[in-house]
C-alpha cells in the first residue's frame, strides 16, 4: 500500500470516532486495538498494546504535567491568581489585552522552568483562563495566547526536547540551547504584536478596566502583598534548577509545594481548597495522561506500518532545490505534529533528516531551531495536536473544541511566520551561537 493510503486508512477511523463523540482517549485506544490486532499478530498484538500503553504512562517525563496541574489549581482556588490579576488591573487596567499579554509573559517566564509545553498549558490554563473569562475576555484572547506561548517552553532553556534532539541527531546540546533562544523571543514578540494589534482593532475581545483612582501607595501595597510572594513560587521552580538543587522535572514538585505553602501562609489553604486542588488536578492529569498514552501508542502503530517512513522518503525524493527540500522537511514535521507526539516524530525523522542537512552543507543548529518551532506548531494544530486536547481538559467548563481550534489558528499562523523568518534569516540562530562558541 502507498503511504498515503495507509495513513488515510488509519487516520480516517480516528477522525470519525472522535467526531462521533467518543472521548478522544478512547478513540485512540479503539484504533490502536484494531491496528495492533491486525498488524501485530492477533492476540499477541493486543498483549503488546497493553504493555505499550502501560509503558507509555510510566514515564518520568510526564510527571511535571501532573505537578504543574497542582500549581495551577492551587493558584486558582486559593485566590492567588485572582489577586495577581487585580493588582495588574490596578497598574495597567487601561491597557487593552493586558491579561493576554500577561499570559504570553507567563509563557516566557515558565518556559525558563519547564521543557514541556503541556506543563505550561496545564499551569497557565488552569490558573488564568477562568478569571480571564470572568473579566470579559473572548476565548480567542484567553485560550489563544496561552496555547501560543506554551510552545515557548521548548524554545527557551531548559528544554527537554532540545536535549532529545541533540542526543538523537548527535548535535551539540549546548549550541542548540543557545540557538533556540532568539527564535523563542521572536515568537513571543510576534504574539505580543498580534495581541496589541487585534485588541486595538476589536476592543471588545479584551475589555479594558476603568482604573478607579488608586493611590500610588495602594498600588505599591497590592504589589508587595500580591506579586512579590509570587517570586517565591518562581524561585522554587526556576531558582532551584539554576542553583542545581533540583532537575527540571523535580522543580515542578518544589513549585507545587511552594504554591501550596504560600496559600497556607496567607490562610487560604482550607481543607476544602486543598482537597479540591488535589482532586481536580488529579482528574485533569488523568484526562491528559490517558490521551497522551493513546497518542504515543498510536504513533507506534503508524511507525510500524511504515507510512511515516513513506512520508519522509516522499519528501526527500522531491525534485526540488536543497533549500526547498529542507523547507518541506520542516513542513512535514508540522504536519506530523497534528497527529503524533514530539518524541516519535523526532525518532522517525531526525536520523534521516540530519545526514541530509549535513550533506547539503547547511547549519545543523539552524535546522534544529526550525525543527523545534515546527514541533511545537504541530502540537497546537487542529485537529489532533495534543496541546489542544490538554487545553480542552483545563479550560473552563463549556469551552468547545471549536472555540479552542479558532483560538489556536492565529497563533499557528504566527508560528509559521516565525518559521519563515528563521528560514530566511539564519543569523537569528547562528549569530548568538557564534558569539558564545567562538
Amino acid at each position: 500500500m502507498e503511504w498515503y493510503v495507509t495513513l488515510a486508512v488509519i487516520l480516517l477511523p480516528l477522525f470519525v470516532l472522535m467526531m462521533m463523540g467518543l472521548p478522544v482517549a478512547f478513540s485512540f485506544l479503539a484504533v490502536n486495538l484494531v491496528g495492533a490486532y491486525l498488524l501485530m499478530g492477533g492476540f499477541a498484538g493486543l498483549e503488546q498494546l497493553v504493555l505499550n500503553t502501560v509503558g507509555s504512562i510510566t514515564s518520568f517525563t510526564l510527571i511535571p504535567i501532573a505537578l504543574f496541574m497542582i500549581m495551577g489549581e492551587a493558584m486558582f482556588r486559593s485566590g492567588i491568581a485572582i489577586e495577581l490579576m487585580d493588582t495588574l488591573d490596578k497598574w495597567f487596567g487601561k491597557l487593552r489585552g493586558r491579561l493576554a499579554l500577561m499570559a504570553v509573559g507567563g509563557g516566557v517566564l515558565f518556559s525558563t522552568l519547564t521543557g514541556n509545553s503541556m506543563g505550561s498549558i496545564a499551569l497557565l490554563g488552569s490558573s488564568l483562563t477562568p478569571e480571564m473569562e470572568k473579566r470579559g475576555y473572548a476565548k480567542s484572547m484567553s485560550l489563544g495566547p496561552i496555547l501560543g506561548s506554551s510552545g515557548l517552553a521548548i524554545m527557551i532553556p531548559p528544554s527537554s526536547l532540545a536535549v532529545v534532539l541533540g542526543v538523537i541527531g548527535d548535535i551539540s546540546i549546548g549550541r542548540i540551547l543557545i540557538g533556540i533562544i532568539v527564535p523563542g523571543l521572536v515568537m513571543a514578540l510576534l504574539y505580543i504584536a498580534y495581541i496589541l494589534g487585534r485588541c486595538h482593532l476589536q476592543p471588545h475581545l479584551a475589555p479594558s478596566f476603568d482604573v478607579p483612582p488608586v493611590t500610588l501607595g495602594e498600588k505599591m501595597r497590592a504589589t508587595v502583598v500580591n506579586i512579590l510572594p509570587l517570586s517565591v513560587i518562581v524561585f522554587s521552580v526556576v531558582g532551584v534548577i539554576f542553583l542545581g538543587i533540583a532537575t527540571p522535572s523535580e522543580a515542578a514538585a518544589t513549585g507545587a509545594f511552594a504554591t501550596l505553602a504560600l496559600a497556607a501562609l496567607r490562610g487560604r489553604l482550607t481543607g476544602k481548597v486543598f482537597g479540591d486542588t488535589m482532586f481536580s488536578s488529579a482528574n485533569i492529569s488523568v484526562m491528559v495522561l490517558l490521551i497522551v498514552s493513546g497518542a504515543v501508542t498510536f504513533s507506534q502503530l503508524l511507525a510500524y506500518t511504515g507510512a511515516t517512513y513513506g512520508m519522509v522518503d516522499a519528501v526527500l525524493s522531491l525534485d526540488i532545490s536543497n533549500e526547498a527540500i529542507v523547507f518541506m522537511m520542516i513542513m512535514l514535521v508540522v504536519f506530523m505534529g497534528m497527529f503524533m507526539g514530539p518524541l516519535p516524530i523526532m525518532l522517525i525523522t531526525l536520523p534521516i533528516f540530519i545526514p541530509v542537512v549535513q550533506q547539503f552543507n547547511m547549519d545543523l543548529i539552524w535546522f534544529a531551531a526550525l525543527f523545534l518551532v515546527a514541533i511545537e506548531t504541530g502540537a497546537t494544530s487542529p485537529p489532533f495536536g495534543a496541546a489542544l486536547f490538554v487545553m480542552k481538559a483545563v479550560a473552563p467548563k463549556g469551552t468547545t473544541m471549536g472555540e479552542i481550534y479558532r483560538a489556536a489558528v492565529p497563533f499557528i499562523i504566527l508560528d509559521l511566520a516565525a518559521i519563515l523568518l528563521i528560514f530566511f534569516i539564519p543569523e537569528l540562530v547562528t549569530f548568538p551561537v557564534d558569539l558564545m562558541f567562538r
Partner: protein
Amino acid sequence: MFLVKLRRLLSAVNLCCAIIGAGLLLMIAVIICFEVTVRSLGFASQLWVIEVSEYALLFITFLGAPYLLEKNMHVVLDLVYDSLSHRPRIVLQIINATIGLALCGILTVIGISVVVEQFQLGVRQVTVMRPLSWWITLAMPVGMALMTLEFLLQMIRSFRGERV
C-alpha cells in the same frame, strides 16, 4: 432495582479510586520534594523516588479514569456531537457505549492475561528496585474493568432514551 444498586456501588467505587489517585498525586509531590531536600542537605539520592513516581502516575491514570467516565469529563471532540438533536445523539450514544464496552472489555481480559503471564514468568521491571511487573500492569485491567461496567450502564441508559 438491581441497576440502581449497581449504579450506587459503582459510583462509590469510582469515587474511592479517584480519591486514591489524588492521594497518589500528592504522594508524588511529597516524595520528590523529599528527595530534593535530602540531596541538598548532602545525603545520598533516594534511588526509588523516580520509579515510585512513575508507577504512581500509572495508577493515578487508571484509577481516576472510571470516575471521569461516569462524570462525562473525558475530553471529547464536540464539533458535531453537541449540535445534534435528541434522536441522532441517542443513536450515537448507543454506538459509542457499545464501542467503549467492547474496547474496555477486551482490554480487561487481555490485561488480566498479561498480568497472569507476567506473574507466572516472574517478569521484573528493569530498574533499580526491580519490582515484579505484574503489580504494575495490574493498574490497567482494574481501570478497564470498572470502565467496562460504566460503559454498560451508559448503554442501558442510552437504550432507555436518556442522555448520558
